[in-house]
């Protein structure tokens, strides 16, 4: 459970920093008066959707970190046999990077009010994300064909589980991306769509980051780190 504790500690630092900006030391019973009289009390200036996405990313991170915690605890049992990670995953990773870059490009284009580039970026990002998901399914199929079934070893089970959860989150993102693309396609004002495009890009970068961490875990790169974390608690 040390991974999730570390993660929560990081969140606590962020929350503590934010709270420290909120004048928690104020004595509200003495501070009768209007808005401008006391600094630092207003609602955040970010758009609500962006804050909402931020909170959601924190929740999704907690979910993945908890899976990682479970992974690190379960892998210390003797029956753990790491499975050979299919080469295809490297290709998939490349595709996901392309997807993320395309959406970033789309966002930059949105800031320049370049509708055509926005559309191209969104389509390229969406298409490569779909290719990534198809690639993941193909990797599953190859593993299954090679005899690595979900129930035959906990390492296999975690591989299928983690890739599936990541894939589902990306699929959810595709719904939002699809809606955004449809609106741009139908000719919505780019200025209005800028936020949506930005949020999609942020989400894609997050999913890329999660995937890189999971990949490190599944390929065994991070075993040493996981081992250190595990020793912290025993």
């Amino acid at each position, binding site marked *: 459970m040390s991974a999730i504790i570390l993660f929560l500690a990081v969140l606590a630092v962020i929350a503590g920093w934010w709270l420290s900006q909120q004048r928690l030391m104020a004595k*509200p019973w003495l501070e009768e008066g209007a808005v401008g009289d006391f600094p630092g009390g207003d609602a955040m200036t970010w758009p609500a959707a962006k804050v909402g996405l931020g909170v959601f990313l924190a929740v999704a991170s907690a979910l993945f970190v908890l899976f990682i915690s479970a992974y690190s605890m379960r892998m210390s049992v003797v029956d753990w046999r790491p499975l050979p990670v299919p080469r295809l995953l490297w290709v998939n990773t490349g595709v996901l990077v392309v997807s993320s870059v395309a959406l970033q490009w789309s966002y930059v284009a949105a800031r320049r009010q370049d509708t055509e580039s926005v559309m191209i970026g969104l389509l390229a990002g969406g298409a490569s994300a779909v290719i990534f998901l198809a690639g993941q399914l193909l990797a599953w199929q190859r593993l299954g064909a090679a005899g690595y079934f979900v129930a035959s070893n906990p390492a296999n089970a975690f591989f299928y589980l983690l890739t599936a959860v990541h894939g589902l989150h990306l699929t959810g993102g595709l719904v939002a991306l699809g809606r955004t693309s449809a609106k741009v396609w139908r000719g919505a004002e780019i200025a209005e769509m800028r936020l949506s495009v930005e949020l999609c890009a942020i989400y894609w970068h997050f999913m890329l980051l999660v995937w890189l961490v999971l990949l490190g875990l599944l390929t065994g790169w991070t075993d040493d780190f996981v081992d250190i974390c595990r020793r912290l608690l025993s």
Partner: protein
Amino acid sequence: MVDIPYEGIEGIPPAEVPDVELYHPRSWWTRYVFSQDAKVIAVQYSLTATAIGLVALVLSWLMRLQLGFPGTFSFIDANQYLQFITMHGMIMVIYLLTALFLGGFGNYLIPLMVGARDMVFPYVNMLSYWVYLLAVLVLASTFFVPGGPTGAGWTLYPPQAILSGTPGQDWGIVLMMSSLILFIIGFTMGGLNYVVTVLQARTRGMTLMRLPLTVWGIFTATVMALLAFPALFVASVMLLLDRLLGTSFFMPSLVEMGQLSKYGGGSPLLFQHLFWFFGHPEVYIVALPAFGIVSDLISTHARKNIFGYRMMVWAIVAIGALSFIVWAHHMYVSGMFPQFGYFFATTTLIIAIPTAIKVYNWVLTLWRGDIHLRVPMLFALGFIITFVNGGLTGLFLGNVVVDVPLSDTMFVVAHFHMVMGVAPIMVVLGAIYHWYPKVTGRMLNDTLGKFHFWVTFLGAYLIFFPMHYLGLLGVPRRYFELGDTSFIPSSAYSLNAFISVVALTVGFSQIVFLFNLAWSLFKGEASGGNPWRATTLEWQTPETPPGHGNWGKELPVVYRWAYDYSVPGAAEDFIPQNQPPRATQLVQGAAS
């Protein structure tokens, strides 16, 4: 009070109201059924939670019938008894209390108390309710599937939860997991709304330190729930895969019905860690909204500002943070590394400090207050007493050496029912009596309310106090019947019968409350906008019940904190949060 001149305040314009994309219902369906208005969603949440909660209440009667009069009721067998325990616990903790406090009170009070028109993502908010309803329906459907609901206990510990021999192994456990997963998805949608609304949609002047403690409690509890429920999600998904696909996340190799099972190597302890990593914060997810609400009830009905507001806020935040590092005190007897126990015992005792601060501050708020013993106040007082009682036995159980012998006895049942069952329910009932006038525009009947309070309060003590004694005698919990047990005296059996009679009586007396809710809706005395003469924004709405969009053309502007009761020199014993200082001074001038 020092008079501070507030020149120039008159020039402050009210919050500009941009043409918000408020959703406007077009038909009866979108107004009352598929509504995106937080107030309607709140009522939907509350009614659904109450309905499934009544089912859990009936289950508790069935358990009490068996415990009080073993062998008398042939329609209850051992398997069913386990199913009743499981469903009663799960429904009460998650589907009733969590949903009611956050989905019900959160949805109704947050937008009104922070001066917003609605939640920030109304559509997602609506989805949240419908996914929750689906979760409840899936859960309720387990009563009708072959094999019935799961009897694994509300903690659903593997390996027994998914092995044959545990009731509901076929369908019950699978549907239970699915329902939990749905609940968590639905809750996350709602939780995002509650958090972002508090962060983003506060009206002008509503700084964090001017928020009523109710909002602080619900806000912090929601943040905790958003981070804790994923642990239950992970545990549920993995247990579901163990059950359906034969993976071995949690399942060790074992012999099932004389045959070596397909499982091997899994760690049941891992499940317990995940479950309690959710399970302990869950206690405070229920408790923090209760803390917040009770602070407001006490302050309003004692006509006094809350004692130590800052300390109350800090304590809420501190409890929220600490509650994530105490989970393994539920696992002292699980076989985990024993020295962990002492770490978790220490953190458990530390969390008693901010909790005790809150109790002292409630009592000090009452001290020399102008206490009106109206029904909400009675329930608030009942809460304080009950919470102190339950909290003190928590200190016992938080210590490893005391917990080990008591862990599997009725003492634990008594403890968590006091602290997590009766205490929050006291707040729920008090809050309903308090805010019913705002929701419906009518008062609940006072006589019926007082009757309801005394029966519930005294009854709860008659039920749960003797259980401590039974636990100290060594009467085990979760047992269908005690059989021939030499160390349990016959008086324990009489006591059990007594508890059962009281439990049935108290349970049935809730009909008075339900009747009161229904009757007052049509015949209750009209309440007006602010019957309790309270300061917080929800009582200052132009219409009661608040109309769509909550406020008229302009959002309220906040000039003061939420607890200006009995301010010296003020004309009235309360000053609403949206009353400008100048107006107060004029009144003061006129009075002097």
